[in-house]
């Protein structure tokens, strides 16, 4: 099985950002935030999204500076191999931990609401093959699949929000939580954030043309607005009983059961949660694969999937096995890991962007010129490569279309192979005979040629003798 990784365009990258921003934040987070920091926790969401926006901005700058280079190559070229390996090990641990947290939240949600007696193994069996397949199929397949499901997810979320607005009937008290309490709550519940660093891992596989940077930013804004809107509607609907309603997007729709008389319309929210959970886990696995590749570059990519699955199953089944451990993991352990995307990585990227820039300031004009030429060449090469790739794709499509015919032909020839062999042998024999004949004929002719002078000499002697006799 080969891992395929083709490039993705700006739209697919935008949808990746949309999923990364949404999935883990519209379920449990609003309830946990309100429980400790009341309505002021909305400011925390704004703050976290500002951090994510900062990471996206850094990514844009780095991508513009190194348009075709991989992040691990950049790290190795500028900071050495050790830093690269440390970074990529950190990426591996970070995304594995995030996947574990996301899975646990989703599993607990489904176990509490639908599958009360279902074991973890059964749910794992549903998730793991699909996310592995999505990740192995490659980034482009993942992006395109998400493009198909994106309108469905967006429609469901907008529907849930509109329905949820009708459920708002509470008055909430503003600005009562102490500032330190808000900070503490923010530090405890930062775990669902920090996913934007995934973009650094797919840096070389993203193709963004000039003027297309607005697309990822638009998707970022859209997802942020949805998360904040869901949190706001949820908090205004449930206020002081938020702790009794842990699943925000699901709860804001559920009130319609009683007042709207529409039955279990809250199932709709579950559909969106399932889709988002699958895609988000697949993205985490993909991130783990890229990170694994950065550390163990000589090992086949498929081992990264196997490693992830083993590590994931072990952690989920033996370490984080229930809600209590999941909460401890999400609130006490994982927040420390967020130092990596929000502190360490930005520092290194800033160094790459500014410090190195200053060092080579003297040759800046020359380098810019050289860089632009290099870029042009690279673009040409990329265009050529793209054309070739397209041609290969077309050929492969034609080949795929002809495949059945070829198979038929192949089968037919297989049946007549024996006959053909016999014919070939006969032909070969005949050829040999002909060759032999021709060889004999040649020999004969040669002999003839060799004999001819003898005869002519004999006749000449005869003629000479007769001529002598005539003279005599």
């Amino acid at each position, binding site marked *: 099985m080969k891992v395929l990784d083709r490039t993705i365009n700006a739209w697919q990258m935008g949808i990746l950002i949309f999923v990364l921003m949404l999935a883990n934040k519209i379920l449990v987070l609003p309830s946990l935030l309100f429980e400790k920091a009341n309505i002021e926790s909305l400011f925390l969401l704004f703050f976290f999204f500002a951090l994510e926006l900062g990471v996206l901005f850094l990514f844009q700058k780095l991508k513009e500076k190194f348009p075709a280079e991989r992040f691990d190559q950049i790290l190795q070229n500028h900071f050495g191999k050790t830093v690269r390996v440390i970074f990529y090990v950190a990426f591996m641990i970070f995304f594995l931990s995030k996947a574990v947290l996301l899975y646990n939240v989703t599993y607990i949600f489904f176990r509490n609401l639908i599958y009360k007696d279902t074991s973890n193994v*059964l749910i794992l069996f549903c998730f793991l093959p699909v996310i592995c*397949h999505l990740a192995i199929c490659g980034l482009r397949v993942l992006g395109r699949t998400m493009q198909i499901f994106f309108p469905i997810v967006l429609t469901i979320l907008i529907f849930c929000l509109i329905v949820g607005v009708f459920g708002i009937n509470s*008055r*909430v008290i503003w600005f009562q939580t102490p500032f330190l309490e808000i900070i503490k709550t923010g530090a405890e519940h930062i775990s669902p954030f920090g996913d934007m660093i995934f973009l650094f891992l797919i840096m070389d596989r993203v193709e963004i043309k000039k003027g297309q940077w607005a697309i990822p930013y638009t998707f970022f804004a859209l997802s942020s607005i949805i998360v904040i809107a869901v949190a706001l509607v949820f908090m205004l609907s*449930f206020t002081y*009983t938020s702790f009794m309603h842990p699943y925000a997007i699901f709860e804001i729709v559920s009130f319609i059961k009683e007042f709207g008389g529409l039955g279990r319309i809250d199932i709709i929210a579950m559909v969106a949660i399932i889709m988002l959970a699958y895609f988000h886990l697949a993205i985490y696995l993909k991130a783990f694969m890229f990170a694994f590749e950065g550390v163990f570059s000589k090992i086949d990519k498929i081992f990264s999937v196997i490693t992830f699955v083993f590590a994931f199953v072990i952690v989920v089944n033996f370490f984080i096995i229930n809600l209590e451990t999941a909460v401890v993991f999400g609130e006490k352990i994982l927040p420390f890991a967020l130092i990596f995307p929000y502190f360490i990585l930005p520092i290194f990227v800033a160094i790459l962007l500014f410090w190195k820039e200053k060092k080579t300031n003297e040759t800046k004009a020359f380098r810019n010129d050289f860089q632009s030429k290099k870029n042009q060449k690279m673009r040409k090469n990329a265009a050529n490569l793209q054309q070739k790739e397209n041609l290969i794709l077309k050929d492969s499509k034609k080949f795929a279309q002809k495949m*059945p015919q070829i198979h038929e032909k192949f089968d037919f020839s297989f049946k007549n192979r024996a006959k053909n062999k016999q014919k070939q042998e006969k032909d070969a024999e005949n050829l040999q005979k002909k060759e032999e004949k021709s060889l004999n004929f040649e020999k004969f002719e040669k002999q003839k040629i060799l004999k001819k002078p003898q005869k002519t000499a004999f006749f000449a002697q005869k003629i000479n003798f007769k001529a002598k006799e005539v003279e005599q």
Partner: protein
Amino acid sequence: MKYFSNQFFKTPMFLVFAIMILFYGFASLGKPAEINQYAVVTAIGIDKAEDEALAPDTTQSDNLSMPDNESLKDLYEVSLLTFIPVAQQSFTEKYKVVNGIGKSISEAIDLAALNIGREIGLSHLKIIVINHELAESGLFKILDYLSRNIQISSSTKVVATDKTAKEFLETAQKLDNESSIKVAEHIMFNSDYIYSTESSLETFFKGTFGPTKVGLMACLSAKGKEEQTSPTAASDSGQGGGGASGESQGSTEEAITQCHVYVFKKEDLVTKLGERDMKRVNFVLGDFGNGSIVIENFSDEHFDDANLTFEIFGKTINYKISYQNGIPIVHIDTSLTLRLSEVEQNHDILQENVELFVITPAAEKAIEKKVKTSMADGINLMREHQIDMADFYTILHNDNKKAFHNFLDSLEDQENYLSHIVFKVSVRIYAK
């Protein structure tokens, strides 16, 4: 075929799909159907255990629900109005009241489950009935279980009753069976009226966990027949489209009526409000959709010493805050849309066309006076018991946090802040 089989084995997702179907197929085949596993509970009644409850009856065929050597004071008796779903062509729900006694609510429910041999499903629970003695003393111990249970929806109605919860459920069941009056719908309908309040777990907890710590709970009274031979004989019945198999005795004596609204503050029962008191408070809260206003002994150019009843069609209530010398002044602007629905005069038949009746300035003034008096009474009631039912705390805090907290700091008894706030009421009347 060969080509497809080759493709099947070459594509791992097909294999995964096949394995999943086999895996889950067998897993589902090995499990019993949920319909055979659960008893659906639609109402729970919670009482303090008494001697009578401990007496064995037909619903308690054995004494499993009787814990040995336990003091009755610490025990709860839980009655479950339950039906066991049966797959049939016609839709029939045969209800039964099942009891269990335990040291905690969850233990009592578990023991009740033993009496029917099924797991108790609380997902369809619509109403929780709590005995008035428990509501007055240990309500929050019970509500703790109800708030933690994931199966119970927060929109479940919760009411107190002046009799035992078991009796209430039996009466409710009979009413449902004989006249299709459902208690949960009854409470939901009442909450729209000016005389009552919404009484669900959600609203109760919102009030209790809010800044004012005031929670409201409706109290219903069940009037059952006294000539019944045994309560358990009446507890079996059928309902639904499949035809009822209920009691043949007279059904006119069963009734469920609202008696009070219980007001709790910080886990304690502060007061019980009757329908009139609730009407006064609701004028301040603006938490109603329907109701009427009666003006007595009214006289103008149309009426002479008449009793006029106006039906409320719409209302808007706005609170405006201002401060004077550091004291908050709350302006309550009320707009009411009314229609004259009844006239009671002593001497002759009404001559005016009621359909085209326009409220005269004199009538407007009389209504204004009446509403203002009611609102003043409502505010005084809240002041008297220190129960901020309208959540003025939040309104004042959100309006000007600094000024309000300065005002609070200036008070000796901060709990009694309502008494120090000045209220100004303005009422505008519109005819429908």
